[in-house]
């Protein structure tokens, strides 16, 4: 019997097994199916089928690159249908660091990585907007909600009053603009926050570095994807303005409070107009609603192709984004951007598994067109105009056109205020409603890698960037009031074209000594020359086709241009030369050390002051790799610390020269010969020289840890940092009698300190149900520690609202851009309170205050209210930022929420030009002003804004602007799950709401005010009519072929 069995067994060799291997997208071609422990194997064919003869009792090893290998014992079966899973852990996650990549677990600096796919899910036109919820320590604030406008980015707080923007590096090319990329072009964004990571960027790393890698080619099956969405935007909230009747009543109240009598509206207004208001047939014009562009469309389409073989891979894509603005109707803002990308990598010479020579290129081209309304100060801001315009003025006049001179005169309002205007007419006829800006950008780079022996790589990359832009604006003829009119139409055009190049060479050698000592050494140099370009501009008036935007070009004008209409200059080239080296060392991936040294020379400084040396050192310890470490649940724990110095050379060139101003119209004088339109050229020495001007240096210490718990489902990252920027470039304070403008000197220091924390939980209950929750927060304090002048103050500008004193400043001991105003302690409710106040020796702002006046606090108790009583009443820099990301995947449905918040900042809000005009419209907040004892203890009695209660800057205008914004809520479904025969690998349809909820107490339209309304760039948080971020609902489709 046994013999028979043996005989049978001996005869039953080589079982034939067949089967199909698939992955998430369909048949898996080219997967290897091997009999474990032998070389007997095959690969799957075009349909994923395989056939193999194996010994009985064998185990099949099925897998491929990027997939988790599966081991399946043959057993009794002969047919196997296997589904392979993508394996990300196997390819150690890698992050991009300067001039290379590094395994994430070995990184000793502080960096954040955001994947392009995650950015795409948030559907933001500018990738920076998508990063707001996932980048602790990076303060990203919109400068305006107008389409095409940018963001104010400060990594770990503002480091200077000069240029505090981080350095953007796109595919190794420095100085690009992230807004030129569509999120679907981006593979990943790595933000380098601490000195050690940025040190390798030396001269320009003081403000942090943002590295953007566009999608590169991948070996494997070709993948074509389409991502598109279409949406409708509206204003998230509208400030409540007064209507005609309310306006009349409030103006009466103001007049009476000011000692006058109620206004005789019946006598002043045109009879028909007055009657229509009284009988309710005309309630007034809500100008904000009038310029609101409801359901403004937004759309995006992107097609991407990725694929290639082991030797040659490429990635190509084309995308289009179009976004209309929610305000500015009928000349609403508009932004359109088209991006084209082609990246490829080719192995030119391969020898025994070694890629000896590789060549690659990256090319991106972007074309964008933008038009926008005024978003500056109260003289150039259409939302401000709409908020302040008189609601009694009808939008259309008797002839059906926009109310203009005759209609406005007929209303009778000019006897009260000869500036009463129609803001829509002003918008439609001026250059704020007729402008167009186009820009082209081309980024080309080519790189060559030579790897003569394994892990010794010489990389040379040459980058070329070209940019061209043109702008046209046109002001039509119109007559609105006696002061606001244009009797000639005028056009102005300008164009600018230029290019830059850079060349980077690095030699990188990775080697191991004594088995566990791993070294990764890099030496390199770059040279860069920028600014080869020219700009030209011209303007003229009197169009041959008057008042038609379509024909408004300088060549079609019949007027005579004056000298100030013509401009032309060169961009001015400048250069940067650098040498750097880095050594990364780790012992058994347990102890890590990294040393970086960089030497940079910039042409912005005189010879002898050009060069700076920037060192850094960082170390890490992976505690979990220690033998003695044994805590259940802690899978990975790395402690790290770093110290380094970076520089900032971003100041205008030639500060070391005493320049003489040659600007055509700047120094001229009209002696009178030749008539009134002629003047002689004048020149004068305009700026004093500072030969010693040199770099700003930023020195930073960072301590932190990275950890993973519970089977790597919980990820935690923590950082504490202290960043001190020294020798910050400030305008020197010069004595009044020097007679020329101040040069820049190295004369300021600021310290930013803070912590960052990110927590992320990622779990899968089963392959059909997984979820992810991420939260992050960061805290930052910003304090100026030195300003090299007697006062220790850099003054901000006054007249943020016409006629008011200096509102914001930078001062030793305070954060940059803080609000400097009087402090108030409520309102005097009655005479007794006033008497008590004065009896206690406290000063008042006028000798005889009356009930309803603000109690200005006499801070120094000297009995007088003056500048010495002004103090910090607000800070536009957030103390605390937070982000939230939540996503759930359930049987083909995906649901995600993302949000971010900023806390601890204040905003100065002035929606009226209160000091200048008592006739500006009010919001319904006006009913909260004091109108009798006990009515309010915050706002004073209602009188014209020139009254001491208003014109003296006080904290009644400074508001808390803490907010938490639910940035996106998305619900999607992958129709592939029910439509199994679809030609797509994925067919996801989704609905998303953006900015649906913003939790805030702020009473303006948007609490995220990242701009200073046209005043100093180091100030922010000034809301004079801020263009809010839209609330959008969109539907979209992701297709993968």
């Amino acid at each position, binding site marked *: 019997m046994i013999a028979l069995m043996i005989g049978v067994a001996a005869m039953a060799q080589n079982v034939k097994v067949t089967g199909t291997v698939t992955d998430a997208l369909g048949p898996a071609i080219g997967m290897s199916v091997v009999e474990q422990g032998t070389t007997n194997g095959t690969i799957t064919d075009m349909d994923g089928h395989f056939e193999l003869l194996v010994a009985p009792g064998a185990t099949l090893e099925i897998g491929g690159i990027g997939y988790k290998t599966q081991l399946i014992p043959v057993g009794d079966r002969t047919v196997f249908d296997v589904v392979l899973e993508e394996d990300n852990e196997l390819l150690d996650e890698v992050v991009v660091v300067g001039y290379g990549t590094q395994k994430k677990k070995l990184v000793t600096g502080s960096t954040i990585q955001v994947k392009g796919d995650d950015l795409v899910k948030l559907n933001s036109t500018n990738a920076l907007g998508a990063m707001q919820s996932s980048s602790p320590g990076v303060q990203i604030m919109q400068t305006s909600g107008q389409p095409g406008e940018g963001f104010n980015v400060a990594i770990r707080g503002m480091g200077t009053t000069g240029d505090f923007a981080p350095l953007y590096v796109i595919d190794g090319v420095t100085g690009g603009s992230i807004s030129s990329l569509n999120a679907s072009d981006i593979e990943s964004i790595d933000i380098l926050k601490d000195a050690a990571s940025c040190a390798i960027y030396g001269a320009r790393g003081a403000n942090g570095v943002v590295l953007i890698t566009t999608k590169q080619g991948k070996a494997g099956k070709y993948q074509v994807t389409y991502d598109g969405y279409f949406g409708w935007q509206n204003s998230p909230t509208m400030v409540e303005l007064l209507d005609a009747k309310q306006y009349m009543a409030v103006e009466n109240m103001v007049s009476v409070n000011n000692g006058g009598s109620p206004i005789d509206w019946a006598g002043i207004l045109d009879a028909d107009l007055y009657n229509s208001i009284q009988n309710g047939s005309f309630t007034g014009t809500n100008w904000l609603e009038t310029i609101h562009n409801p359901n403004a469309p937004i759309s995006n389409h992107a097609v991407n192709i990725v694929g290639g073989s082991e030797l040659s891979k490429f990635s190509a894509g084309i995308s289009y984004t179009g976004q209309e603005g929610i305000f500015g109707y009928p000349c609403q803002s508009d932004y359109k951007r088209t991006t084209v990308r082609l990246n490829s990598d080719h192995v030119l010479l391969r020898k025994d598994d070694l890629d000896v020579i590789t060549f690659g290129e990256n090319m991106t081209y972007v074309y964008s067109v933008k038009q926008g309304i005024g978003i500056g100060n109260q003289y150039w801001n259409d939302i401000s105009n709409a908020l302040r315009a008189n609601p009694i003025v009808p939008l259309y006049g008797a002839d059906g056109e926009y109310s203009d001179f005759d209609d406005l005169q007929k209303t009778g309002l000019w*006897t009260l205020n*000869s500036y009463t205007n129609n803001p829509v007419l002003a918008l439609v006829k001026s250059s704020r409603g007729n402008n167009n800006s186009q820009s082209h950008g081309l980024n080309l780079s080519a790189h060559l890698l030579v790897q*003569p*022996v394994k892990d*010794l790589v*010489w990389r040379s990359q040459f980058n070329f960037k070209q940019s061209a832009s043109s702008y046209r604006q046109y002001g039509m003829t119109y007559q609105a009031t*006696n002061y606001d009119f244009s009797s000639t139409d005028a056009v102005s055009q300008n164009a600018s074209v230029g290019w830059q190049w850079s060349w980077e*060479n690095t030699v990188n050698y990775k080697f191991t000594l004594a088995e566990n000592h791993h070294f990764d050494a890099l*030496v390199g*140099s770059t040279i860069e020359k920028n600014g080869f370009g020219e700009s030209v501009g011209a303007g003229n008036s009197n169009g041959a086709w008057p008042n038609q935007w379509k024909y408004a070009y300088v060549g079609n004008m019949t007027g005579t241009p004056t000298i*100030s209409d013509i401009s032309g*200059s*060169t961009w*001015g080239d*400048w*250069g*940067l*030369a650098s*040498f750097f080296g880095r050594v990364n060392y780790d012992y058994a991936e347990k102890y890590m050390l990294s040393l970086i040294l960089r030497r940079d*020379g910039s*042409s912005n400084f005189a*010879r002898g002051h*050009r060069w700076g040396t920037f060192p850094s050192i960082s170390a890490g310890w992976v505690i979990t790799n220690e033998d003695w470490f044994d805590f259940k649940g802690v899978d990975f724990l790395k402690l790290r610390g770093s110290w380094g110095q970076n520089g900032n050379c971003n100041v205008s060139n*030639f500060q070391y020269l*005493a*320049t003489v*101003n*040659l600007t055509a119209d*700047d*120094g*001229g*004088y*009209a*002696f*009178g*010969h030749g*008539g*009134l*339109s002629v*003047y*002689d*050229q*004048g*020149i*004068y*020495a305009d700026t*004093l020289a500072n030969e010693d001007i040199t770099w700003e240096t930023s020195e930073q210490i960072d301590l932190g840890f990275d950890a993973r718990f519970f089977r790597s489902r919980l990820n935690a990252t923590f950082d504490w940092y202290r960043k001190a920027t020294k020798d910050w470039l400030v305008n020197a304070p010069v*004595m*009044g*009698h*020097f*007679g*020329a403008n101040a040069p820049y000197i190295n004369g300021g220091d600021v310290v930013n300190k803070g912590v960052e924390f990110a927590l992320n939980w990622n779990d899968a209950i089963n392959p059909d149900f997984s979820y992810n929750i991420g939260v992050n927060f960061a805290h930052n304090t910003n304090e100026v520690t030195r300003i090299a002048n007697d006062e220790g103050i850099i003054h901000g500008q*006054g007249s943020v609202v016409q*006629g008011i*004193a*200096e509102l914001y400043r930078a001062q030793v001991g305070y954060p940059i851009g803080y609000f400097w105003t009087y402090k108030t302690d409520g309102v005097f409710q009655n005479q007794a309170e006033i008497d008590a106040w004065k009896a206690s020796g406290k000063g008042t702002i006028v000798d005889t205050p009356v009930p309803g006046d603000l109690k200005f606090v006499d801070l120094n108790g000297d009995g007088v209210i003056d*500048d010495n009583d002004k103090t910090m009443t607000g800070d536009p820099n957030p103390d605390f930022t937070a982000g939230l990301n939540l996503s759930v995947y359930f049987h083909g449905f995906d649901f995600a929420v993302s949000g971010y918040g900023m806390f601890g900042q204040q905003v100065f809000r002035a929606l009226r030009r209160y*000091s200048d005009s008592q006739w500006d419209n009010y919001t319904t907040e006006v009913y909260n002003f004091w109108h009798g004892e006990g009515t309010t203890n915050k706002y004073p009695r209602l009188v*014209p804004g020139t009254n001491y209660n208003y014109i003296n800057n006080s904290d009644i205008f400074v508001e808390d602007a803490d907010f938490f914004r639910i940035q996106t809520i998305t619900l999607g479904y992958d129709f592939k799950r029910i439509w199994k025969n679809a030609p797509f690998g994925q067919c996801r349809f989704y609905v998303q709401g953006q900015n649906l909820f913003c939790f805030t107490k702020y009473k303006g339209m948007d609490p995220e005010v990242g701009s200073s309304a046209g005043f100093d760039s180091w100030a922010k948080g000034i809301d004079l009519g801020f263009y809010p971020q839209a609330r959008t609902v969109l539907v979209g489709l992701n297709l993968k072929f």
Partner: protein
Amino acid sequence: MKKIIYIAAAAAMTLSLASCEKFLDTTNYWSKTTEDVPATAADAEALVTGIYNNLNVSIGNNVHVNHFLWSEAASDDCLGGGGTNDQTMQAEDLMLNFGSDMYNNFYVDRYKGIARANMAIATIGNVEDLSETRKNQLIGEAYFLRAWFYYELGSMFGNIPMPVTPAADATAPQVSGEAFWGQVLEDCKNSIDLMPSTVTDRGNGHVDKYCAEALLGRVYLFASGFLGVESFTTPDGSTIDKSYVGKQISDCVNNSGYSLVSDYHNLWAYTNRCSVEDELSPYKGRGYKWAEDDGATNPEAMFVIKFNTQPSWSTTIGYANQTALFLGVRGQSDITSKGSTFPFGTGWGMCPVSPQLVKDWEAAEMMPVVRLPSSR
């Protein structure tokens, strides 16, 4: 193989280092420096034009607080005026302070003019292709303007730093009293001595010898009256006393070629030929004729600050006559509305005449006062 790579890399970097400094040198394509200006005759003319530029730009940027408007508001003839929020104007009238550093901007701007004059005086002499007479004329004009600027600042602030060379000296001490006015008088004297007696191209906006003589008179009257001193010694050792000043003024009166208009009304623009005989003008029928009708030159105008039609809201705002705007009558510019300011231009109404002045005027039986219809 490794060695070759290392050597090549080292060589490449050494080469780069050597040519690095040259690589980083840049050229300034937009401005000259004080080293190379003035080099030509055109540079010298433009340098002096730049000093004149300070005259109207410092008004354009400092409308309320420039010397002329300040002195008008502070004087007894005028009130502050303006609108309810024009606190600076009212502060000046009452000699009070408003805001922080009310006059700082004008102070800084005037010193820019002084610095430009200092540079012209120091460097124009070196320009080769300029004739001796032209050099003297230009330097003479620079001396005049510097004297004018210091006269304004000195009478406003009293004791101020007084740089007379282009160097920016943070340790420059304040100068006041006789030492200060002695320097101003010396500048007037130098201006008189340098500029020629025959004036070509009258009314072209440039100052001449006779303007300097007149300025000498004005400065002397102020300084001697304010300080109670009859004779000043200038830093270069000459003496400026009553007889010297008297001689210069006689020379100006007798030989300058300037003369007075027949009727004071003809000095003001409201007598221009388009408005003076209009139905609505209260001045019609009196035979007034504006001295500058059709671009004619006013015979009284010696030192005149000129404006033109090229201003914009940018750097060229100084080209607009902001003084006329700020002194303009506050009312409706629409000629048909109640309270129209015709025939005067509408403006912000700074420095309205004080009621006391009207009373005194009428009591002294000077020309009859014309009252415009009120706006309400």
